């Protein structure tokens, strides 16, 4: 048995290797800095555009809900602030058997639920099993590799996997595997998630639908002295202008996602900190390879070459992002910063067109979501760039749900989309994107390269981080050559807060730990 107690180094080595020392993923201009002595007390108000939907961790996909439930229910392992590694959270460590099939996880001592009951292995087994049982209608797919979860004794859990599975610890760090009391404490799932109970720093207080949601401090929290805040309230403020004005009027403490256009003015507003945090968001254009001429790699490469990524970063993000040259984002473990994604060159694009099945150009459409000015800008830039290489592109706008319907049905030529990671492991996205049987027919593109599929499967089955890194490099490089997606740009998360807020940090996965946040006068 290989013993790995203490810090989980699941991906640390690979990160160091890939990033070569530049792994500090600190945010921008300082709202996240936790300088000075934390102050106890205070109530934090965060305004954002939409309300939560549900607290059911096993079948809720909406980010606004996830950010709240993460304060109540905690997983066994937690992503590090830079999003690259995992640290034991409700677990204190784990060992893995020689055949790579059995993980023995020790639970942290002295952890209690907010209602005072101690955390036991039975709670852990129940929580993970519930997630697995949600199947296709929930997050169950994330536990697809798990064969069985066994409560060995009160403080030890054994997880066996069907086959060697590199992402297991990352899978267990997902909110859907957050720990709740065994049997929902005797309640039905619906009753339980109406006012969920967990080990997290905050406790459910109330939810006024469409208006606000409040959590209060968990007096039984296992991290001594935390949380600092007495309560956290999320308010629903759909209009970004109103959020900005509320921040300036000190009515709220944090503005979740101000407009890119207002970021510069917020940065210079006295008493306000506007901060960007690296994310895992990749904006891309998908080519439908089931439709000619997108089955032609020259056509896909030509369009990718003709994409002016810098212009998009400027027009859409007001300069607050970076062009994308890999299917993985810099915030994702095993990101290859030399993955060979297309760079902007009209000359190369024209050369590729000449080699293609449509040397004289063709007519096509780009599907985007209606009502989103950012996507309109992207589409307009694409339209003018493609005109230069003989492609006449029309823009098709559908509302978000209709848009998704069209993509699922394969009813598009090219379509805009984005991806963000939920776990600190590339497999969640790579299998979705390159494996036609990964659920989405290769991100709805129909991309099917047996070599890439095999490399990706090999990387997922590998637990050695160095070997995984080499395999994922190959996946990224070959995917770039195949140009199955046109990578556009990586955009950060953006938050604005009053200068009294300290210790607020967002990981590349988008989660934030409010037990570290405090407010000064």
């Amino acid at each position: 048995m290989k013993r790995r107690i203490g810090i989980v180094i699941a991906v640390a080595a690979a990160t160091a290797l890939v990033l070569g020392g530049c792994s500090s993923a600190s945010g921008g201009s300082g709202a996240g800095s936790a300088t000075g002595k934390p102050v106890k007390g205070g109530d934090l108000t965060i305004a954002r555009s939409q309300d939560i939907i549900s607290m059911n961790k096993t079948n809720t996909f909406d980010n606004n809900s996830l950010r709240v439930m993460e304060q109540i229910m905690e997983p066994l392992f937690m992503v590090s602030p830079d999003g690259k590694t995992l640290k034991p959270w409700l677990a204190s460590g784990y060992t893995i058997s020689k055949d790579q099939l059995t993980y023995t996880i020790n639970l942290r001592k002295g952890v209690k639920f907010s209602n005072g009951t101690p955390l036991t292995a039975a709670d852990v087994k129940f929580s993970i099993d519930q997630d697995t049982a949600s199947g296709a209608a929930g997050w169950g797919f994330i536990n697809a590799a798990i064969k069985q979860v066994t409560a060995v004794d009160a403080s030890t859990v054994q997880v066996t996997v069907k086959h060697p599975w590199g992402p297991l610890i990352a899978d267990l760090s997902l909110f859907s595997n957050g720990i709740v009391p065994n049997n929902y404490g005797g309640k039905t799932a619906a009753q339980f998630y109406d006012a969920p109970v967990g080990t997290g720093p905050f406790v459910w207080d109330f939810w006024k639908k469409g208006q606000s949601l409040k959590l209060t401090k968990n007096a039984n929290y296992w991290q001594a002295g935390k949380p600092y805040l007495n309560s956290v309230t999320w308010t629903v403020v759909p209009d970004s202008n109103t959020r900005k004005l509320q921040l300036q009027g000190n009515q709220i403490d944090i503005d979740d996602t101000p407009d890119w256009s207002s970021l510069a003015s917020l940065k210079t507003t006295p008493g306000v900190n506007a901060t960007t945090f690296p994310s895992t968001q990749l904006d891309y254009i998908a080519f439908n390879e089931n439709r000619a001429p997108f089955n032609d790699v020259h056509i896909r490469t030509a369009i990718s070459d003709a994409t002016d990524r810098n212009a998009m970063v400027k027009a859409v993000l007001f300069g607050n992002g970076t062009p994308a040259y890999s299917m993985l984002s810099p915030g994702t473990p095993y990101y290859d910063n030399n993955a060979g994604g297309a760079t902007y060159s009209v000359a190369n694009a024209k050369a590729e067109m000449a080699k293609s099945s449509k040397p004289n150009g063709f007519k096509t459409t780009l599907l985007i979501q209606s009502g989103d000015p950012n996507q309109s800008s992207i589409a307009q830039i694409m339209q003018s760039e493609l005109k230069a290489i003989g492609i006449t592109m029309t823009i098709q706008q559908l509302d978000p749900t209709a848009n998704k319907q069209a993509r699922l049905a394969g009813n598009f030529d090219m379509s805009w989309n984005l991806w963000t990671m939920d776990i600190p492991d590339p497999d969640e996205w790579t299998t979705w994107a390159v494996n036609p049987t990964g659920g989405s027919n290769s991100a709805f593109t129909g991309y099917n390269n047996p070599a890439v599929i095999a490399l990706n499967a090999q990387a997922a089955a590998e637990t050695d981080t160095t070997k995984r890194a080499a395999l994922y490099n190959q996946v990224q490089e070959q995917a770039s050559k195949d140009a199955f997606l046109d990578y556009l740009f990586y955009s950060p998360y953006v938050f604005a807060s009053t200068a009294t807020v300290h210790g607020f940090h967002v990981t590349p996965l988008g989660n934030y730990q409010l037990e570290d946040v405090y407010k000064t006068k």
Partner: protein
Amino acid sequence: MLHRLRFIPGRLIQSIPVAFGVTLIVFFMARLLPGNPALALLGQRATPESVAALSKQLGLNTPIWEQYFGFLGRIFQGNLGTSITYQQPVTSLLAQAIPVTMSLLGLALLFSLVISIPLAALAAFRPGGARDLGVRAFTLLGQGMPQFWLGIMLILLLAVGLRAFPVGGYGNSAGDHLYYLFLPALTLAITMCPTIIRSLRSSMIDVLESEYVGTAKSKGSYGAALFRGHVLRNAAIPTVSVIGVNLGFLVGGSLVIEKVFALPGLGSMMINAIFTRDFPTIQGVTLFVALFVVVVGILTDVVYTMLDPRVNFGAKEQS
């Protein structure tokens, strides 16, 4: 007096087919939208397999006629179904949103009357005069300013600048609600005023030129007494129907205002429901709004009847 209100039961009965028609149209129109609620709920992780699994779980696979008749049957038990997004009864969601929108409308109506009546009177007493021109300029401005822009300007001036009001939100107690609703109601009122002022002004001018006002004046009535006793009541009659029609539109207009001022009313509920294809919620809100318009129509006629003894809807219907 009471015998003249006998038309009300008849009107209520007439509104049943209207409501039925609305349910029919809304039910099927909502389902004409491409994509289903499962697709909206599953976010970026939606796959054909997961959509099928969740649709089944949500009961979206039953035949559409069965769903419609189920919906109709439940209405008569006061049950509007369960919101697909929130997994909660639509009636309880409506119970939270209706007071917000209705108090916003009520307060806006009150404000617009408080602003409109004096201004219209001011303008009507000397048509073409300086005051009249000033009032007309105000109505032009009020009509020309987009609601969302006016809202933001009021926020900037009164909430951010003077810190006299909150920047959006609804507050937690009844007093709070009034305080939070002040600016949005004022915004709605300012955009509603021009129509009321114009209608009231022209009917006041007509009334002021009428013989009975001449008679009243010759009997020594003047100023406020003349205005209250002889002018306002008679001039108000056409304006009441203008307000009645406008209230229906205002429900739609409050949608924008609710967004700007972050009010959790019917408008924001409806927009979210449409985007997430939450059919039961869409149906619930539309049904309520339809009934609201019907009731406002009836109330308009009631006010008519009370203002003008010559109006007798009941008699017309009986003859």
